[in-house]
C-alpha cells in the first residue's frame, strides 16, 4: 500500500468513526444512564432542546438527538432494542437506523415490505442498483458493489450506522466485510440476514421489523407471508409419498438441475414435489439427458432469470418464455415423457422463486403440481397484493413483467 492510499484510508477513518460512534452512546435524554428513557426524562429532554433551539437557553441536545429520543420513546418504549440476527449475534440499538447500506437485495426488499423509509437507505448492492423497474428509488443511491467485490471506501465515506449482509451464504466473504467494517468504524452495526429461506424468513421479518420500529407492520407482513406458505404446507402435508408428483427442476442452464442443498429443491419439496435428482452432492448438478427420460417426470419446471435472461420485472415478453418452453419440448426423446404428454412443462422466473418473493413462486409450483388440492390458491393475486400493498410499487401484473409460462 503506497503512502497516498494510507493517507486516504486514514482520512476515511477520521471521517467515518466520529459520525457513527454516537450510535453506541446510549439513548439521548437518558440522563441517569439506566438504559431506560422514562417519560419524565423524555419530557425534560424535549424542553431542554426547545429551550436551546428557540429560547436562548443552554443545552447540548441537537435536533437529531431529540428526534431519536422521541423515536425510541414511541417505538421501543424508551428502551434499547436488542436484535439477534440470523448469525446468532446480538446487537443493541440505542437510536433508530438513519443511514443504512444493504449488500443484500433480499434485505433491501424486506425493509421496503416493512415500510422502512427508503430515504434512509444510502447505498445498495450493484444488483439491486441495476433493477430499475423493481427498485426505482435506488437509482440515485450509491452503489457499493457486491459481497464478492465490495467498494469498502464508498461504504466508509457514506458513514452508515447499519450495514446488512447475508447470514448463511457466502459466509466467508460476508465475514470478511463485517470484520473490515467493524475494525475501521466501531459504530457501524452489521446485521446478517438471509431473507430468502422459508424456514427462517418469518422470524427475520419480525426481527428486522423490531429494529426499524415497525412491529405492527412486521406482524402484518409475516401473517401475509405465512398465510401463503402455511396453505402450501398444509395442502401438501397429507399427500402419501407414493402419490407425490415427480418433478424435474431445471436450473438456468440446460440439463443442470438442483439437488438437496439448493433452495429450489427445498421449494419443490415444500410444494409437494419429489425431485429424482435430489441426492446429488453438488447443489446444481449436471444430469445425463437420458436420465431425465428414464425418471419420466410428471412435471418439468424450467428456471429463467440471471443465467437465462428472459422474463422478470424488466419486460412483458411472453414470447421469450414461450420460446424457452418450446425449446425444451423439442428435446430428443422428450415427446415420450409424462410431463410433455400431459402438457405440464412450465417456466418460472427466479425473481419470484429465489429471493424474498419465494412464497409467490412456491405457490405457483404447488398449483402446478396439484391443481385440485390448490384450486383456491391464487399466486397471481398473492403476487399483485405483495407488490401493491407491501412493496408499494405501481406495477400491474396484467400488463407488466413476465414471471410464469404458461
Amino acid at each position, binding site marked *: 500500500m503506497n503512502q497516498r492510499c494510507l493517507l486516504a484510508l486514514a482520512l476515511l477513518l477520521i471521517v467515518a468513526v466520529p459520525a457513527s460512534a454516537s450510535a453506541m452512546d446510549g439513548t439521548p435524554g437518558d440522563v441517569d444512564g439506566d438504559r431506560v428513557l422514562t417519560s419524565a426524562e*423524555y419530557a*425534560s429532554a*424535549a*424542553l431542554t*432542546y426547545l429551550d436551546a433551539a428557540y*429560547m436562548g*437557553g443552554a443545552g447540548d441536545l*441537537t435536533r437529531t438527538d431529540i428526534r431519536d429520543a422521541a423515536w425510541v420513546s*414511541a417505538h421501543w418504549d424508551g428502551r434499547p432494542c436488542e436484535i439477534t440476527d440470523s448469525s446468532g449475534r446480538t446487537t443493541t440499538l440505542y437510536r433508530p437506523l438513519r443511514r443504512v447500506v444493504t449488500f443484500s437485495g433480499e434485505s433491501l426488499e424486506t425493509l421496503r415490505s416493512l415500510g422502512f423509509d427508503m430515504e434512509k437507505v444510502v447505498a445498495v448492492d450493484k444488483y439491486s442498483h441495476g433493477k430499475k423497474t423493481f427498485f426505482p428509488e435506488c437509482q440515485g443511491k450509491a452503489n457499493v458493489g457486491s459481497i464478492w467485490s465490495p467498494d469498502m471506501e464508498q461504504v466508509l465515506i457514506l458513514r452508515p450506522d447499519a450495514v446488512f449482509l447475508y447470514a448463511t451464504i457466502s459466509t466467508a466473504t460476508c465475514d470478511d466485510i463485517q470484520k473490515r467494517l467493524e475494525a475501521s468504524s466501531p459504530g457501524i452495526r452489521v446485521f446478517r440476514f438471509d431473507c430468502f429461506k422459508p424456514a427462517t424468513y418469518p422470524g427475520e421479518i419480525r426481527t428486522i421489523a423490531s429494529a426499524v420500529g415497525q412491529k405492527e407492520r412486521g406482524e402484518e407482513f409475516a401473517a401475509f407471508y405465512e398465510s401463503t406458505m402455511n396453505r402450501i404446507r398444509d395442502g401438501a402435508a397429507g399427500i402419501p409419498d407414493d402419490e407425490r408428483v415427480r418433478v424435474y427442476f431445471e436450473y438456468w442452464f440446460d440439463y443442470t438441475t438442483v439437488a438437496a442443498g439448493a433452495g429450489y429443491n427445498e421449494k419443490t419439496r415444500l410444494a409437494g414435489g419429489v425431485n429424482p435428482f435430489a441426492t446429488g452432492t453438488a447443489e446444481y448438478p449436471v444430469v445425463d439427458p437420458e436420465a431425465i427420460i428414464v425418471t419420466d417426470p410428471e412435471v418439468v419446471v424450467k428456471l429463467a432469470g440471471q443465467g437465462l435472461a428472459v422474463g422478470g420485472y424488466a419486460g412483458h415478453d411472453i414470447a421469450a418464455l414461450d420460446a424457452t418452453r418450446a425449446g425444451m419440448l423439442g428435446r430428443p426423446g422428450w415427446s415420450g415423457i409424462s410431463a410433455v404428454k400431459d402438457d405440464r412443462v412450465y417456466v418460472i422466473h427466479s425473481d419470484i422463486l429465489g429471493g424474498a418473493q419465494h412464497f409467490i413462486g412456491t405457490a405457483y409450483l404447488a398449483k402446478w403440481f396439484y391443481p385440485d388440492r390448490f384450486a383456491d390458491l391464487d399466486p397471481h393475486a398473492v403476487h399483485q397484493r405483495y407488490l401493491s400493498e407491501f412493496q408499494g410499487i405501481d406495477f400491474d401484473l396484467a400488463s407488466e413483467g413476465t414471471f410464469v409460462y404458461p
Partner: protein
Amino acid sequence: MSLPANRLLCIALLLMVVPAAACASPVTRSLSTAEPAAGEVFTVSLSIEGMTLGGVVETLPAGYAFVATDLADDRALARGQQVAFAVMNDSRITYQVRAPASGSGDITGRWEDFLGESDGQVAASHVAADGIEAPVESGGGDPVPPAAQETGSPFAVLAAVAALLLASGRGGRR
C-alpha cells in the same frame, strides 16, 4: 396578453405549495378573548392534530405574562416572553396569560414534530388589551432555530425561487 413561461411556472408552484403548507400545521391556536381587559387573565388553547411527540414554543407580546398551564410542571418551561411545551400525545394544551394595563401585539409560535421530522409556524393571534391598539416597545419576536435556518423548509425554498423568478421577470420588462 400572455404571461411569460417562468411566471406561469411560479404561479403554478405557489398555487400548489401554499395551500399545502398552510394546511400542514398540526397546531392551531384559539383565545378565550382577543380583547382582554387590562390585567385580565385569559386562556390560550392550542389544538394539536397528528403530532404525537413534539414541541411548541409560544412567544407572547411584550407586557403579556405567562401565568400557568394545564400541563404538568415538567412539561412546560417559561423564559421571558416565551413558553415551551413538550407535546406528548396531547390533542389540546391550554395556558393562561395575564394582559398588561395596555398594549397589543401578536402571539406567535413554532412547532416541531419530532417523530414526523417536520416543523413550522403556528399562525399568529392578535391581542389588544381593552381592544385598544397600542404597540409596545419591543415584541417577543419569533426566533428561528439554527437548524431550521440551515436547512430551510421546501416551501421557503420554493417561495424564494418563485419570488426571485418573478422579480427577474419584472426586471426584464423594464
